């Protein structure tokens, strides 16, 4: 086996040193009846070329057309430097930087990550990453429960449906109650006043995604005020990190939880992505996940290390803030490289391009909601079903939007469409044409 750095002579010599005759003897403590008597049914090992060819073949079976899918996974340019950095063995093949003296590169980059997330979200502290946006949001909810000592969560119906599902999975066994605040059928945004009515003395947090699943901006300010009035926290969730380049952070939010996939991570059929939670300094000890802090080495020079680990499972065990251990460090590093390469100006320009593209496309389609939007919006299919329009687009080798009936039965005639800096005018015109064909009865 080409991965194994041993010759037979090496093995023999080592066995001899141990005082054994055969490798099998190393397993003699395992009861014989538990030992496999025949090889696993997995076939022979393949060459590197065959392995790669297998995956290339699977790749060819997937479509790689231009697409207007967003809904929590976005298509954005990926600066070449991202993979260059993430491919360096010194980042790729290290593990959690427990040994600070030989992990300063990872630690410094996480410290930069935490800082940039704070700059983007307007928060004071951010952790080193969570599995994804959905678990980040869910852990934010658990965090709010710990902070407030309450056990009820009000979540906007405009939060990504799969994120809400994850919240419910976790909530079910924690005796946590989850209540949904509906969206206004006209604007697509949460009605802050109605949400306020749902907040009660047991409510730990109001969770809103903005831009929400429909792409619509939520009234975060008003929501924060309502939440605070009720003694609850406001959790701001984002799925499209690029929006942070243009949208003002909500200064009254208590926790921001989001997904960083847009920052140089390809859609990758759903993962690995990276979630993150940012919050106020005062809540830091309730943050789940790893944190890197600045300190000094024994000679007084700036150094970084993992810190506040008494929050974590390996110290606090069943009383930890979370059970998370392995996180999404390499993905967070990729996001850090992305943020560095785009930088202050670039991130804004990127957001502006997204805005322009989506508004160009939206201008040609019948929008379902009136709320302000960033790079996603809901369009109503007229004259044909969303699925039918998508089929017509597929014939032009374009993947259309996401039919919403699956998540929102009341929106069964609608599609969620996303345009990014990668969307080309011709492609958008083709989408507009398909909608027009449908509306005009030509489909």
């Amino acid at each position, binding site marked *: 086996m080409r*991965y*194994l750095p041993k010759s037979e002579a090496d093995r023999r010599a*080592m066995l001899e040193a*141990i*005082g054994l005759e055969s490798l099998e003897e*190393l*397993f*003699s*403590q395992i009861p014989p009846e538990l030992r*496999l008597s025949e*090889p*696993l049914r*997995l076939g*022979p090992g393949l*060459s590197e070329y065959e392995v790669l060819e297998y995956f*290339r073949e*699977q790749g060819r079976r997937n479509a790689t057309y231009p*697409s207007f899918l967003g*809904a929590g996974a976005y298509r954005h340019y990926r600066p070449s*430097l991202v993979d260059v950095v993430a491919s360096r063995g010194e*980042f*790729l093949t290290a593990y959690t*930087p427990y*040994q600070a*003296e*030989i992990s300063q*590169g990872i630690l*410094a980059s996480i410290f930069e990550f935490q800082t940039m997330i704070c*700059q983007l979200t307007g928060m004071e502290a951010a952790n080193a990453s969570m*599995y*994804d946006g959905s*678990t980040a949001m869910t852990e934010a909810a658990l965090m709010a429960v710990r902070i407030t000592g309450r056990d009820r969560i009000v979540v906007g119906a405009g939060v990504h449906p*799969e*994120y809400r599902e994850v919240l419910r999975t976790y909530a079910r*066994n924690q005796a946590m109650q989850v209540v949904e605040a509906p969206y206004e059928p006209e604007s697509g945004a949460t009605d802050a006043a109605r949400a306020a009515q749902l907040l009660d003395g047991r409510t730990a947090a109001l969770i809103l995604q903005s831009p929400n699943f429909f792409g619509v901006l939520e009234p975060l300010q008003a929501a924060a005020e309502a939440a605070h009035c009720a003694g609850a926290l406001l959790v701001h969730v984002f799925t499209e990190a690029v929006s942070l*380049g*243009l949208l*003002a952070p909500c200064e009254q939010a208590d926790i921001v939880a989001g997904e960083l996939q847009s920052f140089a991570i390809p859609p990758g059929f759903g993962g*690995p992505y990276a979630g993150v939670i940012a919050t106020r300094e005062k809540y830091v000890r309730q943050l789940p996940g790893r944190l890197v802090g600045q300190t000094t080495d*024994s000679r007084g020079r700036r150094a970084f*290390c993992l*810190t506040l680990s008494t929050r974590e*499972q*390996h110290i606090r065990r069943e009383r930890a803030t979370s*059970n*998370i251990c*392995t996180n*999404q460090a390499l993905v967070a590093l990729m996001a850090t*490289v992305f943020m*560095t390469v*785009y*930088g202050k*100006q*670039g991130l804004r320009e*990127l957001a502006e*391009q997204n*805005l*322009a593209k989506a*508004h160009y496309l939206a201008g040609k389609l019948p929008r379902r909601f009136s709320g302000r939007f960033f790079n996603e919006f809901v369009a109503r299919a007229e004259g044909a079903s969303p699925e039918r329009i998508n089929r017509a687009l*597929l014939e032009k080798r374009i993947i259309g939007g996401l039919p919403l009936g699956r998540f929102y039965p009341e929106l069964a005639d609608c599609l969620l469409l996303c345009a990014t800096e990668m969307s080309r005018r011709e492609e958008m015109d083709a989408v507009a044409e398909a909608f027009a064909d449908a509306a005009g009865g030509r489909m």
Partner: protein
Amino acid sequence: MIGKVRSHIVQEEPLVFELSSAGKRGFQLPALDVPAADPAAALGAENVRGPLEGFPEVSEVEALRHFTRLSTWNYAIDLGMYPLGSCTMKYNPRAHEEAARVEGLAWAHPYQPEELAQGCLEIMARLEEALAEITGMDAVSLQPAAGAHGELTGILLVRALLETRGNPRRKILIPDSAHGTNPATAAIAGYAVENIKSNARGMIDLEAFPGLVTEEVAALMLTNPNTLGVFEVNIARIAEILHEKGALLYMDGANMNALVGVTRPGDAGVDVLHLNLHKTFSTPHGGGGPGSGPVAVKRELEPFLPKPRLKREGGRWRLDYDRPQSIGRVRAFYGNFGVLVRALAYILACGAEGLRAATLDAVLNSNYVRKALEPYYDLPHREPSMHECVFSDQRQARRGVRTMDIAKRLIDYGFHPYTVSFPLIVPGALMIEPTESESRRELDLFIQAMIAIAREAEENPELVRTAPHTTRTSRVDEVTAARKPVLRWRPGS
């Protein structure tokens, strides 16, 4: 004499914010092919943010140098042995990075039509099948993002099954040798944790165990081989005892690298287990992640697995959301797909024979190290070792040298330290997992280093206590870091 490393120079580098200067940029976008939109008009002026104060402003070359320089401050598997116990720091084949970057896979959108995602679905199905075969289980979910996430999923499955039997029960039994994620997981799943004491051999005490398994017990979370690297020889009996009481056996499969191709948890009566693809199946650790923590279950638990499930229909794969008994989702989408690609690539590359050969070499390496270090370090448990061996610092502690000091001194010798202070049942533990990826040469250098440190601990304990001495950064003050947390850069800081 330290022969494995030499002193050399590495570049210093400030934080990226300290490199910024107004107007520098590292990226250019293609020209916009549609009219620009006025942010204030489109979003409402109140929603448009001001400049991103403090955000980096550097050129491309500075960005590349920045991260390249930082990288040179890290240790990694690519540089040498990384015997971090319980973490299985094995070689990460580079071809698999290429596999994960295949355009049709990397750019597949999770919501693209199933008929245009057959390649992805096929990969997931094939991996599920392979993992079921390797573990001897009936069904696998690839959704969990890491080991701890897999644990949570597994315990929620236990709860769901027990609920259908009328009572989710109240507590989970966890040996005192377990990893911290086990009790933390049980708590998040709403269970009380009952720690059970390992016996003198470091295993479950089969005498006491039946008495612990009451009607309140939902499951035992057993790590096998346990965190001492010892195979729980009574695992089949343990499963029987649990099953007799209507409880389940959860196995933490973090240490599967000791078992693959040799024995299968499913055959020993395990009901549910998680795997760490980033350990046993060679996917890179990436400085802390991403990982992937698939959960494998026996048939009985299958209906409760997270949704969606893969389903074969008319010669095609689809995603089945119609799973009324499912515990629901544990994350958005389907799992860390890119990690799944790498793990399947590893399984295909190894084949049955290669996987077994890797296990044999992993156990060989650990026993070779154990044998060589026994004269120098205290071995608190003398049971046969599997893929890792655990010493204690008892002898060195007499001279005031603790496991952390020995670990730091190992850095001077050119190695990443072993796992320090874990498992908790061994005071001052040195948990050493070489993995199969180490050559005899590298192991011999490690052994020499450990022996040299044992001698130093006798002759010059201060040298060890203040290590490392040769690194860019000397021993880091973690106490101050925690006492006065500085968690972000600020101008002028």
